[in-house]
Structures are given as C-alpha cells and as structure tokens.
C-alpha cells in the first residue's frame, strides 16, 4: 500500500522544567484516543520513577497517535526530548527525527533559559516552531505578556498561538490542528535504500538493545539483515513496531515512521545514538549526518558505604551499562574508601541520575568522590599521563606541565545580559573570542573555557545571573596548558586520598578554606581533637580543628532502662558502620558528597 507522507507529522515538545510538557503529552494521548483518561497514570511518557519525581525526562519515549481532521486520518508521532544541558547531544538527535517542535510556555512564568536552549537547537535543526501558551487558567497567567515575549524574544508572530491548559484540558484540539496545519510532513523515498536514524536506545531483558528509529528512506521488516554505519556490525531484525504508547509490533516500518527495531543486539553500545541503520544487501550511501561519539566529561569515584558491597556495586554497574551506553567505568582503589570504581559521566546531572539509580534500583549505599575532568600530565622526560583521579597525579617534581580540557562555549542571550555573562565567564577562566548579533534581540557569545569550570555550577550560575534568559552550548575543543595544583586534605595529619582535588592555583586557597570548613561542619566530633588541613605539595594552606567530643553518655541505667539503653547503643553502633574509618578518624559518608555541593553555596 502506497504511503501518503502528507498524512504524517513527526514532532516534539520543548519546554522548561515545570512548564507542563508531560501533562500536555498525556493530554494529546487522551484526545487522540491513544490512551483513555483512566489508563493514564499521571504523565505516562516519563517512564522511570526518577523522571517522574524530578519532573525531567531522561529516556525518550516516542508515541504514535492517530487524529482525524477534515475527514483525513493523520499519523502523529510525538518524540519526547530530554531537557537538560547534560543531554544536549541526545536532544539534537531526537530533534533530527522531527519536522516540527511545539514550544510550550508557561503563561505565568514566560520564556526561560532552558526553553530557549532547546528552542535554538530546534531552530538549528530546521524545525518549524509552534509556540503554545500553557497554564492559561492559573490566576497568575499573563497571556498578553507571554505573547509579547514570543514576538520579542523568539521573533514569531503570536496572534494565533494556541492558548491552552494541559491540566484542565482547555483548547487541546487547537494544538492538534496547528500541528497538522503548521508542521511540514516528513520527506523521503520509500523505494530508496533503508536509512534509519537511531535517536535513542534502551535495553530490554528479552529482546536485547532496542533502537528507537526515525525512518528517513526505505522500509525495514522482520528478517532483514541490517548494518550499523558507525560500528559496521550486522544484525537480523527480529521485531519492528511502534509505541502506542506501549511497544506494539508491526509488519514493517517505512519512510516517515517513528518506531523501534529489535535485532538481538546484545549491548546498547552496539546501538549508538545518532548512528544510521541500513541494510546489508542494499545499503544507503550516506548516513544521516551529525553522528558524534558520546564521551564522558566528568569522572568520579563511586564506592559502597559498606566495603563488603563492592561485588554488588560491580554487578549493578554492569547491569546499568546495558541500558546506558554513555556510562563507562573502571575499578580503582582508595586508601580511605577501599575498592570502588572510577565512573565517567556526561555531566553532573547524569552523575546524579546514575548514583540515584544505583542506590534506588540496586539498593546500594554509595559514597561519591569529588568529580574531576580528564587531565593530561606531561611528565619530566616526555611521558604523557592521562588522569581523572586527582590522587594519581605524580609528584610535582616529576611534572613538566599539566593540560586541561577546554570547550568552545556558545552563550545565547538577550543583549542586556552581555556584561553579566562576560563577568561570569571571565571569573570562570574563560577566554573571550567573539560576539555576534543574531538579531536585535539575541546575541551569541563565544568563549574558550576550561571544561572543569563548565561542568560544576556554570549552568546554574549563568541561569541566575541572566534571570533565566541565557542558554548555552559547548563542544570539547582540545587541551590547554594551565597552572593546576592538587589540593590534598589531611585528617589528623594523614592524607585522605578520596578528598583530593585538582584546581587552578589561583583558586586553591579559597577552595581549600571552604572545603576545610565544610568538613568541620559534617564530620562529627570524635574522642580526640581532629585537625583538618588542606595542603599543596606538603605546604599547609588552610586549617580547621574539630574539637574533641567531651560528653556522650547515658546517665541512668538501672533495671528498667537496660533494654532501652542497649538498643540506643546498638543504634549508635549501626551508625558507626556507615562511617568510613580513616586512620583513627571516622568520616560519615555524607562528608565526601558534601564537598560536591560546595560550589552551589
């Protein structure tokens, strides 16, 4: 049966957290009768608990809907996108599967940074933009002001934008109608060789890695021998299908379709996001452009709170890696923490998500050490060492110089905030390159900046200094030589390797004193005085002292008290198990994590 591509729309929703993306998605499912209202557990598309709790989307779930307009049945494929800068690449891949993007704006909040970051990505991917104003039934809704923002900031006419309430189901049809009228249909050739873009993948225990694909050309069906462009590996297709929103097998997927391919792929690593699938016998000549290898940029040590849980942690990481291709790890040991792993992440949010999943899904208690980027250490004599664990840094005497990764950073913002952005980027050791006016309302600033400055709190700082209007994008751009030093933390005179960190020489003093005072706060008083020192190469640069504990005693203990007092002490004993003993000092596992949060203070 010949397929009429003009009856297909592939689109996504971009929005700031809390602006109602998931609620609108649910409503679209309901109005297209893909799911009935009673079947909608709140926010169906965010499948992981973690996503639902944080209100963010990590995994992308595409869904196929059908909608009748003017007597014609349209197929609407909604492709969900993650909303955080850590996942910029994933967003760009899923946008490649779309022809249009709904820009959802909260009528009471207006346009915010994240909305813009994803919007600009959408514009760069040549998507048609449909602004939709949501939450119009809130008392604080300001529809006129929001329309004005759409015209001023985005530069789109706002007269006819749908004004809706996803929550109360107001004007949802307007959205569906506009999607069909405003968005172009996908293009492609059904008789051309198969060209399918993998825009996401996940792991299924029975079917192996599942590729979420957008078919750009051709047809794929069960039994086809397919080939991955990037890895050159081949597989036999065992199942194809679409999401409605649950997986539902079909006989084939053809040009314009968005769905999934299962082919007994053992590992998500074989189904790389951004790669192109074609057939072995009749391959397409060019892949869908834009594939990038996903590289971890932040590394952190992960250790079980209780040392004997090392094997459990290992198994958990192995399992998690099956479903998260961006997760890399290798074993490491620490004098303070014992056996653990050095794990690479796409960014701090990714790191938080992984550690939370490990703790929640695998019931582990973890200690995470200070995140670090990858440094290149040029040793005296010419050897080059790549390190991501500060305690592996060789003696200063053996180091010629150290290089750190830098990024090419683009910040988009209304011109008003240029001064603030300049200040922030220079504070963060950025080197200013360029400023371009994209139009009267938008500038693009370009800096070269150390990656380590970006990964920690840059995004939050940028957001707060520009009242949410600026957005950013960056790509790794080699290494530069920097005056970096390792700050060691000594507890009771002994160096605690898990607390060491690498930072710029000029920031070492300030950083050291905030770390020592934070540690003083989080390490409980012990039976003796504990000095906390920060040192660079043996020279102490900051010091705090935890005073000795003087009283920890239960007064009365007679016949009627014995059971209760014993239980209190048993509880205290359990508490001690969660402490890491370092020399004679007991450190609560929170102490390690507390340092991570320093920058946010």
């Amino acid at each position, binding site marked *: 049966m010949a397929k009429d591509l003009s009856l297909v729309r592939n689109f996504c929703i971009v929005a700031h957290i809390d602006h109602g993306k998931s609620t609108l998605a649910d409503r679209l499912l309901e109005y297209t009768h893909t799911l009935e209202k009673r079947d909608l557990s709140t926010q169906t598309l965010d499948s992981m608990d973690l996503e639902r709790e944080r209100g963010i989307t990590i995994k992308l779930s595409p869904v196929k809907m059908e909608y009748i307009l003017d007597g014609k049945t349209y197929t609407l494929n909604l492709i969900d996108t993650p909303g955080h800068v850590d996942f910029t690449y994933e967003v760009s891949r899923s946008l490649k599967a779309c022809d249009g993007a709904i820009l959802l704006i909260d009528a009471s909040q207006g346009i915010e940074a994240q909305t813009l970051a994803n919007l600009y990505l959408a514009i760069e991917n040549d998507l048609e933009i449909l602004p939709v104003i949501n939450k119009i039934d809130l008392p604080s809704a300001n529809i006129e002001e929001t329309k004005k923002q759409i015209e001023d900031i985005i530069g789109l006419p706002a007269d006819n934008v749908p004004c809706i309430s996803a929550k109360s189901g107001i004007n949802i049809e307007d959205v569906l109608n506009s999607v069909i009228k405003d968005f172009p249909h996908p293009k492609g050739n059904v008789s051309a060789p198969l060209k399918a873009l993998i825009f996401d993948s996940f792991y299924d225990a029975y079917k192996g890695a599942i590729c979420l694909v957008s078919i750009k050309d051709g047809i794929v069906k069960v039994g086809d021998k397919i080939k991955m462009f990037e890895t050159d590996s081949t597989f036999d297709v065992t199942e194809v299908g679409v999401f409605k929103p649950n997986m539902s097998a079909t006989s084939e997927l053809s040009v314009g379709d968005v769905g999934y391919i299962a082919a007994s792929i053992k590992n998500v690593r074989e189904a790389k996001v951004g790669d192109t699938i074609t057939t072995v016998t009749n391959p397409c000549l060019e892949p869908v452009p834009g594939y990038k290898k996903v590289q971890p940029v932040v590394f952190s040590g992960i250790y079980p709170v209780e040392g004997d849980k090392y094997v459990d942690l290992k198994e958990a990481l192995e399992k998690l890696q099956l479903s998260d291709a961006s997760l890399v790890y290798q074993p490491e040991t620490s004098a303070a923490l014992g056996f653990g792993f050095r794990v690479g992440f796409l960014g701090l949010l990714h790191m938080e998500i992984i550690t939370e999943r490990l703790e929640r899904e695998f019931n582990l208690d973890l200690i995470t050490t200070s995140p670090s980027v990858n440094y290149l250490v040029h040793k005296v004599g010419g050897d080059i060492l790549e390190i991501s664990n500060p305690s592996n840094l060789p003696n200063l005497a053996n180091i010629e110089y150290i290089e750190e990764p830098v990024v090419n950073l683009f910040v988009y913002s209304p011109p008003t905030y240029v001064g603030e952005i300049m200040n922030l980027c220079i504070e963060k050791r950025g080197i200013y390159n360029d400023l371009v006016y994209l139009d009267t309302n938008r500038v693009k600033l370009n800096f070269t900046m150390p990656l380590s400055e970006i990964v920690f709190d840059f995004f939050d700082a940028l957001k707060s200094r520009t009242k949410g209007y600026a957005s950013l994008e960056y790509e790794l751009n080699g290494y530069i030589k920097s005056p970096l030093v390792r700050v060691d933390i000594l507890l009771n005179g002994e160096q605690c390797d898990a607390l060491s960190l690498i930072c710029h020489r000029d920031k070492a003093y300030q950083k050291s004193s905030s770390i020592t005072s934070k540690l003083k706060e989080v390490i409980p008083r012990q039976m003796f005085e504990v000095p906390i020192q920060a040192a660079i190469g043996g020279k102490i640069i900051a010091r705090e002292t935890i005073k000795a*504990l003087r*009283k920890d*005693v239960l*007064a009365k203990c007679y*016949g009627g008290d*014995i059971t209760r007092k014993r239980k209190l*002490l048993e509880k205290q004993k359990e508490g001690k198990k969660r402490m890491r003993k370092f020399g004679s000092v007991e450190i609560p596992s929170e102490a390690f994590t507390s340092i991570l949060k320093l920058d946010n203070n």
Partner: protein
Amino acid sequence: MKTSNIYIHIPFCRQRCTYCNFKSVKFNIAMAADYVTAIIKEIRARKNEINGSMAKTVYIGGGTPSILSGGQLTRIVNEIKKYASIDENTEFTVEVNPESVTPEKMYVYKAMGVNRISIGMQSSNNNVLKLSNRPHTNEQFLNAIKAIKSVKLKNLSIDCLIGLQGSSKEEAIKSVKQALKQKPKHISVYALNCDENCLMYSLVKNNKIKIMEDDEVAKVLEIINSLLKRKGFIHYEISNFAKKGFESQHNINYWYGEEYIGFGCGAVTYRNNTRSECISEVDEYCKGKVKYKEEDVNDKIKLEEKIMLGLRTIYGVDLTLIDDNKKDYIQTLVKHKFAIIKNNKLILTEKGFNLSNQIISVLM
C-alpha cells in the same frame, strides 16, 4: 537459701518534672488506693518468683513512693514479707521526694525495715527547681533531711541533676556542695539527658528554652568528680558515688547482670533469660488488667549487656569477653587514657566514662 532482688514501682507524682521520661501519673487519692490493692494482687499472683527467698535488696522506686501514706507502703511490704525474708542485712531503699517526707513516714519506713533513703534534691536553687517543675523548694529539702536524720538510718543517698534549665556551672557545684553538707554515704550525679519522651524535649529542640551545653556539662562533671573524690567518695558507676561499703547493692546487682523481680506498673523483671516489663497504663493496672511485654535475653544480648553495663562501672569488663579484633582499639583507649587494664579487666577512666557511649558502641 536462694536470694532475691526485689523492685517495687510507685508511679505517682504530685506533678511531672519537665525532664522526666519515666512512667508516672498525677497523684490522686482514689487511684493510689486502687493501685495499692492492685500491686498486692500482682505480688500474690507472682509469689512463686520470690517465695522462700532471702531478699538481698529491696528497692521501692518511682515516681514518688513517699507520696503514698506510710500505711499503704507497709501493706505492700507486708505482702512481700509473706514470701521473701527481709532482715537487717537486706539493703532496703525507698526513694523519696522532699515535699512528701514527714518524720512520721520516716518512722514507719524504719519500722518496715528500710535502711536506705534516696532523696531527689536535684538542685539547691529554688529558681532552677521551679523551672523544671520540681514540686519542692530547697527549704523543703532541708526539712526533709532533718526528718530523715531523726530516725538515724544507715545510708542516705542524694540525687543531683546537672545541666537543668537556668542552671550554671557555679549553681551545679553549689548544689553538690549542699548535698555533701548533709553527710550522705551515697550521691548520684546525673547529667541531664533531654529524652524525646520528656515535656521539655520540643521546647529545647525548638530553642524555646536553653539547657546547659554538653561541653559545659562535661566541664562541670569533671569538677564535681574531683570534688567528690577529695571528700572520700568512690566513683563506682558513671552516675554514682559512694563511701566505701555504701555502694548501692541493688543497682550493682543490675550491673552484674543478675536477676531481679519487679512489681508494679512499669516495673521490669529479669529472670530465666527473659526480661518482662509491665506495660499496662496505670488506670488499667488499677483495674487489674496487667499486661507484660517480654524480651528473650539470648547469649548475644547477654554478652552485649555485660559489656555495656560492665564498662559503666569501675569493676570493668573481662577482656576475654571482648572480640579479638578490637585489640587495636583497646590499645588506643589505654594510650589516650580513656581506659586502663587491671587484672585482665578493661576499666574506663573518668575521661572514658564521659564518652562511654562512643566506646561501648564500638566494643559491644
């Protein structure tokens, strides 16, 4: 002849002190009368637990036992005496509060065989007493002492409480000095624990009232410890001081892990590897509804308790009872003078007593 250690609980108080976490109810005459009947019934029902024994110790505690009339207390004791022998070698203690001590009651106590009075002074400062809702003044305390002295009992013990609201280092030391002036053979010095079951807990937690900081309490305890030592008292348990030969036998019995039989609402019994607590509410108990909660004291618990209780006393704990992998820790304790080793026993020092929770929770 087998021996027994008997505890009798009287759960009534005139009013509740702000720091108290014991089971006690406001005294009322009718309920007290019912209670006496009920406890006699309980003793009768459980008589075989003490029948034919020689009472080594009897302890009537509370609450405020002295709130009952001399006659009521005598009836209870007479019921005990039907089954267990009490003689002049029995250490027989009654806890009293100053406001309910009269010379008459003291005569009755003496006639009953009581030879030890433990009185709750807590503080010598009327303002501090008032802030804690103690039902007496310091003048009443001094009068009570006169009444107690008038019957010439063998042993007097005075309780002091350190760290109360409104107290200070000076006030606490002054209180202990006043206690010493009464020439007691025994003094208990308790550091205030603000337990979550007490009235002031939420007030303290929300900074509505201030009690002494832990560091300050520790400092005061150090001063008091050395003061009492100079006056010839032995610091034989974390909170207890006695002239030689006047250590509380009843309490030492607890700390050695020996058996004891308790009667009354809230009282605890430990015998045959079982600890059972009477958990009825007072009004239920008075109506004869007696419920017990039992705990099986197995070998593991027994060992933990031996370590916990032993380390709270100057008698220490046998090193053989402590796990071998704690050797390094014990060495550190000794090196830093938190403990000493004597006759193959680990004994905490004064410094160790103050941090005993830390130490016990590692060793047990």
